[in-house]
């Protein structure tokens, strides 16, 4: 706990709606939470041995690295590793750590962190910059020890209290897989961007989240009371009674998760001029299928299968495990379809098995279908699970990151081979499953007439399409403001996709974040899209929007929108036109339109840290 209980307010970027109150759970740079556990008397010496083993292992690793380094660049460069090895041999440190384990009956991880944090604090106070920076060497060694301690003792979630607010510098999306999501209420991060995958997942899990909060981490400790206000982009440490009273109703509402509008699910999403728009759900976690049904989704337009894989840091999930999940999805959503996107690891979706960190430019690297075609054994297992599960309902296969027709040929050949190799219970082979391609690479848009002929349907992945078209890394805060969904080039591409698909009579679906915003939804309607897949939370609102517009009016809006020169002009035009048509409070979406950098006069200021009150 920090010593004071005075309320402190920090400002950041609210990237996922909702308000949540809870106690802070602080993660380290590897998204590890280091908690103190009290050991039984008879386990203390085992813990000391476990620590000593980790030290020996660390030393052996460093000796090995030193040898490699000597062979590659000469022995004289090995000295920095000597320094690291000497730290592991430093009795003053080692004795201190062991004393903490023995004296406090503490787990080794905690003891290591305690002892080294103190030393690092001392180093940080040195005047000489060179010696001050040795902190990074100490941290390096600490990380190695913790890594070697890990495995035996995974984060113990069971003893943690309910209502946790996860605070960290950065948050790797794969860390969601190891969290107990029943206990986590919100995220507060120092880094991030509104379209990062962490943000997308936070929204899909309906976890309020604020990112790009500067300077709060040193002031927050595990156990502190925090209020995360995703609507306002605020983080409040030790929130006052008055503040909590004021927010009361909203706190209650966010606990319910799905907004009240869900009640309107009985009415269909049909425009005023009678066009039925199919609103579907994007989901990541198997249990989200319930939220999708509650919101009245007509299918799962995009099931991001990565999470089955993230949950398996030691290997690939077996065919059988995947089968169970896909069967459940197919059964639950029937008679509506579920589109399963095959593993889209790589890019910003880092995942241990693919070692994308070894790639200098992962988003241009081995990801999506490219990776699947390189690891055919695992790809085949996933395909087999989908084909088998399709007997339980309606499933579809979506291939991510397609950029050439050859990739589709190769994937389809494999899918057909797998299908013919399967014998279901009755002895028959499963029926073919529709195969679609994600359109998210500009090359796929330009050659869509060829690609579309090879597949049964198309899905537009707007996030990646925008990233690749605009050459903007959406997670890079320096250019995040250039990530403009309303850039004229995006509108041209989206329009072109709809036209080509209509001409070739291929169903096409929007599957990116863009479909969550009613302003964009109107644009899609006007372009001719009739399937929008989105975070289920936004389905009820979007349904209302669909019911209050005509496709004719939407088409006119698109015709005029494409004549503008800048994203800012388009955004302003869109806000004016849509607000006239739709009699709903869209202010939060309007804010999103502005803060996503579409309006240049209102560029987001980098999360300033104001300590108010």
């Amino acid at each position: 706990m920090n010593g004071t209980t005075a309320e402190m307010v920090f400002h950041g970027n609210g990237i996922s709606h909702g308000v949540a109150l809870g106690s802070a759970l602080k993660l380290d740079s590897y998204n590890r939470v280091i908690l103190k556990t009290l050991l039984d008397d008879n386990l203390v010496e085992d813990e000391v041995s476990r620590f000593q083993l980790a030290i020996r292992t660390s030393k052996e690793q460093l000796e090995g690295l030193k040898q490699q380094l000597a062979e590659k660049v000469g022995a004289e460069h090995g000295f920095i590793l000597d320094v690291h090895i000497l730290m592991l041999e430093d009795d003053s440190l080692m004795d201190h750590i062991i004393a903490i384990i023995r004296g406090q009956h503490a787990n080794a991880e905690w003891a290591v962190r305690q002892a080294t944090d103190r030393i690092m604090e001392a180093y940080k106070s040195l005047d000489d910059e060179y010696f001050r920076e040795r902190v990074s060497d100490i941290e390096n060694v600490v990380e190695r020890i913790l890594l070697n301690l890990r495995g035996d003792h995974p984060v113990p979630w069971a003893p943690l209290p309910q209502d946790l607010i996860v605070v960290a510098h950065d948050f790797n999306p794969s860390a969601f897989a190891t969290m107990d999501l029943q206990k986590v209420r919100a995220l507060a991060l120092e880094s991030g961007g509104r379209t990062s995958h962490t943000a997308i997942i936070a929204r899909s899990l309906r976890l309020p989240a604020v990112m790009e909060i500067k300077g709060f981490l040193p002031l927050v400790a595990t156990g502190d009371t925090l209020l995360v206000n995703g609507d306002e982009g605020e983080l409040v440490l030790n929130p006052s009674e008055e503040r909590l009273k004021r927010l009361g109703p909203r706190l209650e509402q966010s606990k319910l998760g799905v907004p009240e509008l869900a009640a309107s699910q009985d009415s269909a999403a049909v425009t005023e001029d009678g066009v039925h728009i199919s609103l579907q759900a994007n989901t990541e976690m198997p249990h989200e299928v319930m939220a999708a049904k509650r919101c009245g989704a007509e299918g799962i337009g995009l099931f991001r299968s990565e999470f089955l894989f993230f949950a398996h840091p030691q290997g690939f999930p077996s065919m059988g495990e995947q089968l169970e999940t896909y069967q459940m999805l197919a059964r639950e959503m029937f008679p509506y379809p579920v589109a399963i996107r095959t593993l889209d690891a790589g890019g910003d979706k880092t995942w241990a098995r693919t070692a994308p960190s070894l790639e200098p430019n992962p988003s241009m690297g081995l990801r999506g279908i490219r990776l699947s075609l390189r690891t055919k054994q695992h790809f085949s297992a996933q395909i087999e699970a989908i084909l088998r599960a399709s007997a339980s309902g309606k499933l579809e296969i979506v291939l991510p990151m397609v950029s050439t027709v050859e990739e589709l040929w190769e994937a389809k050949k494999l899918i057909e081979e797998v299908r013919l190799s399967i014998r279901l219970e009755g002895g028959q082979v499963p029926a073919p499953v529709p195969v679609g391609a994600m359109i998210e690479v500009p090359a796929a848009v330009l050659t869509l007439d060829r690609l579309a002929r090879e597949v049964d349907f198309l899905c537009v992945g707007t996030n990646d399409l925008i990233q690749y078209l605009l050459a903007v890394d959406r997670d890079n805060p320096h250019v995040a403001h250039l990530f403009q969904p309303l850039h004229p080039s995006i509108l041209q591409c989206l329009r072109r996709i709809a036209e080509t698909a209509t001409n070739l009579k291929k169903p096409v679906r929007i599957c990116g974040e863009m479909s969550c915003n009613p302003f964009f939804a109107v644009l899609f309607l006007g372009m001719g899209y009739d399937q929008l897949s989105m975070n289920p939370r936004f389905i009820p609102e979007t349904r209302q929007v669909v019911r209050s517009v005509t496709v004719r009016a939407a088409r006119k809006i698109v015709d005029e929108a494409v004549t503008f020169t800048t994203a800012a002009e388009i955004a302003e035009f869109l806000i004016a036109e849509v607000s006239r048509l739709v009699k709903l409070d869209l202010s939060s979406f309007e804010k999103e339109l502005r803060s996503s950098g579409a309006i240049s006069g209102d560029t987001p200021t980098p999360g300033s840290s104001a300590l108010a009150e």
Partner: protein
Amino acid sequence: MIQLSIVVENRLGLHARAAAKLVQLASRYGSDIYLAREGYQQAINAKSILGVLMLAASKGTHLVVSISGPDEVDAGEAVGGLFAAKFGEES
């Protein structure tokens, strides 16, 4: 007990490479070897890399080395020699 007065003369001071050499050398002797900045009470163990780096001894720093133990004479010569040779870094 032996006490040596030493001035750090190599260009980079007791930086990582020199500190590692000092700790490795000191660890070969059974004697206790402590370093302190001249005029300061706080002494650090010359066998502790974290201690030696914490001294933050740049070029020109005056140090006092205190050695006591069965091989204190040999240790003193060796440690003094290492500083005099500027840690073998400059010819």
